[in-house]
């Protein structure tokens, strides 16, 4: 039995903001941006955050795995929606992990994902490690162009691994290339040339050398080098300094996604595994107040493992966004006239939220033991016509069930952060239905009978109290992983 990666997955939001749309707006102010208007960056929908993206990446990684076997969950992010509420606890509940699962948040550095991965691999417990980032950037900043929102997840532990851990090394250094404090919404960043010369080039190569030495692997034997940096040619320079071939440097996914912060090293690792062959050696490095280096060797299992959509699948599930003002609005970067209908109180009674968390967070309904009817929500009296049995229902989750549109509309009257509000009656394959919100959908693609999948999303934002509540929404089935 080896220790390593059992499963891997990713999530990239549907919308891809065209960098040209940003540059067209800000070139007048900062002409240096004009040369950066190529490609696109992943952009979270208004109803997504680090928690919801973590859930989707985790579901992707868990494709084909029994969730009951997950003993621990570590979610890494620097953009958690909650400072004091276990974000991983929301993720664990949405995933229906056992309540004995040890869930923890890992934060505060860009290498939180790789550090969590090292700790998980050393723990001996089957652990789900997720990196998720909904990046916060100032309008007209370089980071607005180079960042992207995404999540990646790795299921690690002992067993029939797809990639065996050969070695892992860490260095800590209070090298502050940027920071974000309690008092700041956005990063404050130092000069890039200094970060490159005194940071990446001084901190990363020694850790890499230590890691390779511990595994007794020569630098030139590394097949894929996963290293996240948006600075030009830095990955190649680090590779060269550590003695690796330049060809080993993995595509940083900059052109179509952007740098997803904490998630990015894990995302590059997941992407590398998608195309890996048995025997490949993958080195992943996380950088931030020091560096983490992990070296994996791909096993034969890679050819037969169950896969979700993965990085490539989610990159292909894509909608070009050319409205920069939509990005500003989603990220609270512009004061919008949202209309009086947006003033409706969205307070969530926390006692009711807890009482109903299986319904709301897990999307559990019921299955009647007497008549077999599936239904949502689970109630004390069965809805089956001619049944009406009392207390007859076992919990039944609809989260992974395919639904079909029974009726729909695109509502321009009600308040939505992204009008029109699309919603309708979703009918599940084997029974059960619910009138629910749709997300990641084009109005023109709505039709009765269309296949829909369930996605965990923000239901409402209570801006008066700094709270958000979550529920499941229906999204078009296009781009869903095939079973097996």
């Amino acid at each position, binding site marked *: 039995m080896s220790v390593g990666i059992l499963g891997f997955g990713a999530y990239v939001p549907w919308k891809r903001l065209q960098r040209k749309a940003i540059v067209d707006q800000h070139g007048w102010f900062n002409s240096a941006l004009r040369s950066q208007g190529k490609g696109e960056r992943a952009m979270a929908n208004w109803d997504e955050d680090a928690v919801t993206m973590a859930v989707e990446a985790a579901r992707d990684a868990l494709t084909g795995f029994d969730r009951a076997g997950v003993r621990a969950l570590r979610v890494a992010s620097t953009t958690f929606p909650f400072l004091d509420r276990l974000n991983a606890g929301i993720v664990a509940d949405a995933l229906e992990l056992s309540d004995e699962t040890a869930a923890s948040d890992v934060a505060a550095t860009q290498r939180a994902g790789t550090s969590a991965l090292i700790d998980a691999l050393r723990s001996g417990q089957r652990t789900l490690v997720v990196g998720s980032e909904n990046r916060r950037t100032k309008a007209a900043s370089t980071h607005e162009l180079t960042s992207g929102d995404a999540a990646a997840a790795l299921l690690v532990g002992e067993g029939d691994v797809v990639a065996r851990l050969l070695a892992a090394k860490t260095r800590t250094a209070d090298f502050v290339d940027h920071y974000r404090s309690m008092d700041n919404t956005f990063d404050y960043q130092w000069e890039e040339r200094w970060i490159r010369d005194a940071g990446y080039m001084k901190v990363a190569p020694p850790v890499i050398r230590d890691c390779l030495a511990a595994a007794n692997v020569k630098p030139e034997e590394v097949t894929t080098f996963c290293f996240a940096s948006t600075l030009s040619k830095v990955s190649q320079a680090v590779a060269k300094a550590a003695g690796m071939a330049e060809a080993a440097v993995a595509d940083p996914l900059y052109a179509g996604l952007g740098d997803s912060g904490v998630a990015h090293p894990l995302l590059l690792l997941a992407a590398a595994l998608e195309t890996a062959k048995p025997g490949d050696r993958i080195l992943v490095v996380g950088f931030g107040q020091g560096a983490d280096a992990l070296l994996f060797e791909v096993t034969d299992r890679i050819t037969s493992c169950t896969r979700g959509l993965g990085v490539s699948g989610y990159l292909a599930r894509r909608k070009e966004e050319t409205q920069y003002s939509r990005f500003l609005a989603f990220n609270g970067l512009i004061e919008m006239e949202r209309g009086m209908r947006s003033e409706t109180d969205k307070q969530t009674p926390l006692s009711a939220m807890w009482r*109903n968390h299986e319904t709301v967070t897990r999307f559990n309904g019921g299955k009647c033991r007497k008549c077999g009817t599936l239904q949502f929500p689970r109630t004390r009296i069965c809805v089956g016509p001619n049944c009406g049995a009392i207390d007859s229902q076992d919990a039944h989750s609809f989260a992974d069930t395919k639904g079909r549109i029974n009726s729909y*509309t695109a509502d*321009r009257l009600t308040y939505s952060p992204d009008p*029109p509000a699309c919603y309708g009656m979703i009918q599940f394959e084997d029974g*059960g239905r619910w*009138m629910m919100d749709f997300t990641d959908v084009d109005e023109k693609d709505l039709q009765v009978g269309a296949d829909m999948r369930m996605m965990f999303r923000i*239901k409402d934002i209570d801006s008066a109290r700094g709270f958000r509540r979550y529920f499941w929404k229906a999204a078009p089935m296009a781009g869903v992983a095939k079973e097996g």
Partner: protein
Amino acid sequence: MAKGIRDKVAILGMGCSKFGERWDMNAEDLMVEAYIEAIADAGIETKQIDAAWLATAIEEQHVGKSAVPLAMALRLPYIPVTRVENYCASGTEAFRGAVYAVASGAADIALALGVEKLKDTGYGGLPQRGRGTLNNMTWPNSSAPGNFAQLAAAYRAKHGSAPQDLKRAMAHISVKSHDNGAKNPKAHLRNKITIDTVVNSPMIAEPLGLYDCCGVSDGSACAIVTTPEIARSLGKKDLITVKALQVAVSNGTEAQHNSWDGSYFATTRVASKRAYEEAGIRNPREEVNLIEVHDCFSVTELVTMEDLHISGEGRAIFDVLDGFYDAAGSVPCQIDGGLKCFGHPIGASGLRMIYEMYLQMQGRAGERQRQDMPRIGLTHNLGGFPHQNVCSISIVGRYGD
């Protein structure tokens, strides 16, 4: 089946305020406006009323909770007064309370009054509201047009109707109601429109445009009921009596069970059948002379024609376009303008429909009077959403028929 309400209760008097944007009126003033007309029509005094029911749906926008606002506004003499709320079907619920009180013998004369003061929200359309603690966590933030618009998607899918055909039939419905409303001095909207106006109006919730939606109005309507015997003793002739009162309320089947296809109102189909049985009507298409239905949206009226068993399934589009439901058609629908143009002050709407029946059957409907003097009329008052709602049907007619 129970013996029912047929001919046990007569309408003694009715009143209805002008509907519309009544910027200078509180809800209490609107109540008094409808009441003054009703009590004068009944020819009685306030002290003769034994019990009263108040219908309001969005009370937080105007009078607040309880029946106290009605008792105070009308200065009712410490009698039993009850407030009822059942979504947009509240008005008919107040009527039902008063009728049942008389039928039971608990009251000789009872009053039902519905009122809504909606135009204090600061924006057009119905007020945006919460739906209850748990519902708020899982329901879409849907608007009323958004909920009802879905009938169109499901209806098209079921009957294979082309979107433009359905949209034209819906447009015909709105044009017809505007034609009718133009003849009604109490109506909120009195302008005539064309098919093109409807089809080209701004989209509210696909496929409902602005002119597929009813008016949001302030207004009040009132009924005073008694037994036929007392009505006669008070000098009334040509009595209008209640033939049937039926309510059907969704039990979750449409919302939670896949047996419902989304294209019709399960409640209306049940309630109308029971009402016909209670009233002794065998062939509604032939026997019902006049209908007032809950045309909150054009598509609601269209599918309701089938749910009332007047148009055959999938045939409503054709009956509508043939003019079957026009003011000069076989069974006029919304001859007063309906919710669409008379307006929709929620708690008042069910009573407003009965008010029109009462006027038409007495030949008092003025310019819009149906010349053949209708004898059997049906009102259909609906509250909620297609997938979970309250449907209230009443049938009224000439006493003795």
